[in-house]
């Protein structure tokens, strides 16, 4: 039962263009969403997050959009840079007052072509 889905295992984007990574979820109780970035042989690192009370959150080149009615979120990277090549995981959580746990998607491998 995959509650968080990333249907694109891989994505290639030209340097300087926009990268769009997508994530869908099925659990309507999820109210907080995060994106993690992972380089080979390293642990995931937190990138950006969004609460369900918002529909957009921006941090520099990274913007996350949330469409609650569609149970869909996306991560936009503009402009894409070679250092953005990594695996990106979408994660979600529901409020549980100190007992929150993250449910991760399967990841999308992003390759930025110079």
């Amino acid at each position, binding site marked *: 039962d995959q509650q968080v889905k990333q249907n694109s295992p891989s994505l290639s984007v030209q340097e300087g263009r926009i990268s769009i990574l997508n994530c869908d979820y099925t659990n309507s109780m999820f109210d907080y969403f995060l994106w993690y970035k992972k380089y080979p042989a390293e642990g995931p690192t*937190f990138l950006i997050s969004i609460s369900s009370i918002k529909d957009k959150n921006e941090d520099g080149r990274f913007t996350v959009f949330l469409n609650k009615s569609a149970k869909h979120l996306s991560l936009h990277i503009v402009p894409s840079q070679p250092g953005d090549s990594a695996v990106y995981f979408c994660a979600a*959580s529901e409020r549980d007052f*100190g007992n929150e746990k993250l449910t991760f998607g*399967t990841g999308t491998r992003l390759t930025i072509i110079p």
Partner: protein
Amino acid sequence: EAGVAQSPRYKIIEKRQSVAFWCNPISGHATLYWYQQILGQGPKLLIQFQNNGVVDDSQLPKDRFSAERLKGVDSTLKIQPAKLEDSAVYLCASSLVGLWETQYFGPGTRLLVL
């Protein structure tokens, strides 16, 4: 600030053998998590500690997996006996109490069970 440390980085064992992984969280982080990441999947939470108490171990296969966090700092995760399907990367993460959304991950231990 030192990150989350894990050892060993790689381990190869035969099925039915035992194995243990060690994690040292970031100093001051009272909350510690162990995740299992099977190839092609996202990390899955196995167990969460706050100080030396277990907060959530609902997804830990308790017939073969055990974890402890004596003194509320370092933690060990043990598998006994190992099965082929335990081949995965075992990630340790830590966070400040109440800041579950900002978890810092270690580099992981890659386990191969033959």
